[in-house]
């Protein structure tokens, strides 16, 4: 086992520079070390000014997404040893504006998320005294996959459509809309339809499929989008043939 590996870390210091640059550091790489451990080593021992986000170090909080050797990755779930002799190049996630160093702005996603109404919509609330909504394990399975999204933004970073047209509502937001659409307790599908069937909604997607490949939680946002396209097409046919009914 080698004892160190080279990390090339992207820096952007907005008060001083107008372009990103790279710093190079040697960091230890025992078997258990992930890319994030390497960054923490730099911050703690070498250069305290390096800025990046992290929290859980167990792939669930979704804050540590970065571009590692060109691929969007959760840095807490990517072993340094995967990169053999290195060097390992760490950059901020693509397709987002960089605030500083490895930190990008995800405000755009947060605003889009609200638009798809990611909450249970009911015509009438069931009172608590009547107990739970019954939901069989099969019904739970229908949407469960889409409820696994940790909003890590890797899918947006991998999506060339989002890069070209930032208005595109994007993979995770659509997957989360589908998470509620497919929930047996929800009655809000028609409200979400408006936003999702916009030009920048599902129809913006041309099915590159990269989002699904990079998703660390197997959410399959590409699948969610294709599935919704079918639903939307059927709905619009219905309203075409049966304008006032159904």
């Amino acid at each position, binding site marked *: 086992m080698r004892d160190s590996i080279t990390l090339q870390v992207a820096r952007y210091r907005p008060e001083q520079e107008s372009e990103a640059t790279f710093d190079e550091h040697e960091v230890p790489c025992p078997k*258990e070390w992930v890319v994030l451990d390497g960054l923490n080593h730099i*911050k703690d021992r070498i250069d*305290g000014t390096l800025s990046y986000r992290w929290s859980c170090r167990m792939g669930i909080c979704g804050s540590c997404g970065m571009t590692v050797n060109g691929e969007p990755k959760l840095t807490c779930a990517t072993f340094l040893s995967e990169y053999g002799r290195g060097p390992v190049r760490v950059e901020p996630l693509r397709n987002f504006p960089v605030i500083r160093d490895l930190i990008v702005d995800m405000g755009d996603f947060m605003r889009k998320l*609200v638009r798809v109404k990611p909450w249970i919509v009911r015509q009438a609330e069931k009172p608590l005294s009547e*107990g739970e909504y019954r939901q*069989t394990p099969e019904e739970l399975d229908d949407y469960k996959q889409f*409820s696994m999204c940790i909003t890590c933004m890797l899918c947006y970073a991998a999506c060339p459509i989002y890069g070209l047209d930032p208005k595109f509502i994007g993979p995770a937001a659509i997957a989360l809309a589908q998470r509620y659409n497919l929930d047996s307790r929800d009655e809000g599908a028609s409200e979400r339809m408006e936003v999702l069937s916009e030009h920048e909604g599902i129809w913006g997607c041309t099915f590159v499929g990269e989002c699904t490949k990079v998703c660390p939680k197997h959410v399959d946002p590409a699948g969610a989008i294709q599935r919704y396209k079918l639903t939307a097409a059927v709905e619009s046919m219905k309203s075409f043939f049966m304008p006032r009914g159904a």
Partner: protein
Amino acid sequence: MTPSHDVVLVGGGGAGLRAAIAIAETNSKLSVAVVSKVYPMRSHTVSAEGGAAGVISPDDSLDEHAYDTISGGDWLCDQDAVEAFVKEAPQELLRLEHWGCPWSRETDGRIAVRPFGGMKKMRTWFAADKTGFHMLHTLFQTSLKYASVARYDEWFVTRLLVDEGRVQGVVAIDLKSGRIDAITARAVILCTGGCGRVFPFTTNAAIKNGDGMALAYRAGVPLKDMEFVQYHPTGLPFTGILITEAARSEGGYLVNKDGYRYLQDYALGKPQPQPVFRTMELGPRDRLSQAFMKELEKGRTIDTPYGPVVHLDLRHLGQKKISAKIPFVRELCLKYQNLDPVKDLIPVRPVVHYMMGGVHTDINGATLLPGLYAAGEVACVSINGANRLGSNSLPELLVFGTRAGRTAAEYASLGLEVTSRVLAQSDDERRRLEGELLNHKGRERIADLRDEMQKTMEESAGIYRSGASLARGVERLRGIQERSSDIAIEDQSKTFNTERTAALELSFMLDVAEAIVTSALHREESRGAHQRTDFPKRDDQRFLSHSLIYRNLDGPSRVEYLPVTMTRWPPAERVYGEAAPNEGQHHVAGSALPSGTGV
């Protein structure tokens, strides 16, 4: 313009979001702000795995849940609070179901429950093995529908604004822009979570630095029962990643270097092939962690580069059961420790997991400072007493988040005005954060001081403490505190300066560490998670009471005691294993679990 709200919540974890929704639902005219140093869905509630306790089975009762909680807490719980808690927990969990939480289900569509360490009955609701994740995302997504809830994402709170004897807001740094401003409010609720990072081995995320405890402590509010720090008996070494209790309730064994199920040596019952409630591997956490220390002393642990460990053995469960019941455990081991529990033993050690103590509040989340409330892990109500039972904390966030939210909403409706003096305070704070902190050319590295603090805590206030170790701890912490005034901050940038926040977090942690060690030094007995080698017995005569520690700017902190509230359960001996009453042969056989509960 200085932003202003009726209620400011510091923290957007489970407690903060539940409180925000409670306020919005109580009075939609009140403007609420959720101020959080990370995006709310990144909060540490996200990593809770096992589940949330709430009585729903017909063969269960509120009294049994209360009794398990109180006996588990070694009679240091306030029993009125526990009664309120067990009564409201199922309601709150059900409300979350109505908001969309994907609870695991029985085949007929009802909520499924599973057994959990320390609980005599099956009453733990779960959403596969990502319960906290699903709860947090459900709360966050639901909170988006309330127009009156504003968010300050990635704003780091550095101090409370207090004037005329009441809280009037906070000062915070907007990390993205570097803006430092007051956010004024009629009421503030602290929901900042725990402080596990004060210790070297912990399941807690990097953001759990006891910020809220220190904020309150500095504002003169006492912290309660800070000596009670819960260890989780099974964390992965190095990363501190938690291997959930579920791994044991599904039938995992803890073995020492001889492959021996050593828990049988520590009055935790006889080993059975099937797990039995409240015995052996399903005994309470503190007992399991203490047994590890005894094994360590006897030289029966296994040495690794990350210190001594014992092994958690799941191999006999087989791939099918592991993948069906605890897939997350397998995923974690494969992804972070590079081992497969189907074939390999899992190295585990006790790791700091939960803080029973916290900001002293009453049953409605109110602190002694008017306008200041606290809920969640940062608060101490106390329902957890000397030792929290697994799966009681998630429902606690909901029950007391709601209570604190409602009470704060009421108080904010009184309409007290913000005084101009607090704006001057906020200007002072800005000067400190921009001037003193950034321009100071210090020599001490943040990471060095942090490591030293953590080492000190482990050595002086670990699983076993003594008067001598604690006194030494107080001394050493004082030294680190002094050195911390000469801290080096290389980063001069105002944009997302994470070195400055690390320095602030270190100073929060140092205050909390001092409170823990001092409180522990004063409690001359052993109870729950607080085990003194020099006072090995519980002492109800002197210490059936909560400790309250007050910060004293010039001199040592002051510790006072407040009697525990008793209603119906007089103190008794905590017994586990065979000696436990009505234990019988409650096997938690795999077949007792409903099939089709989802994974």
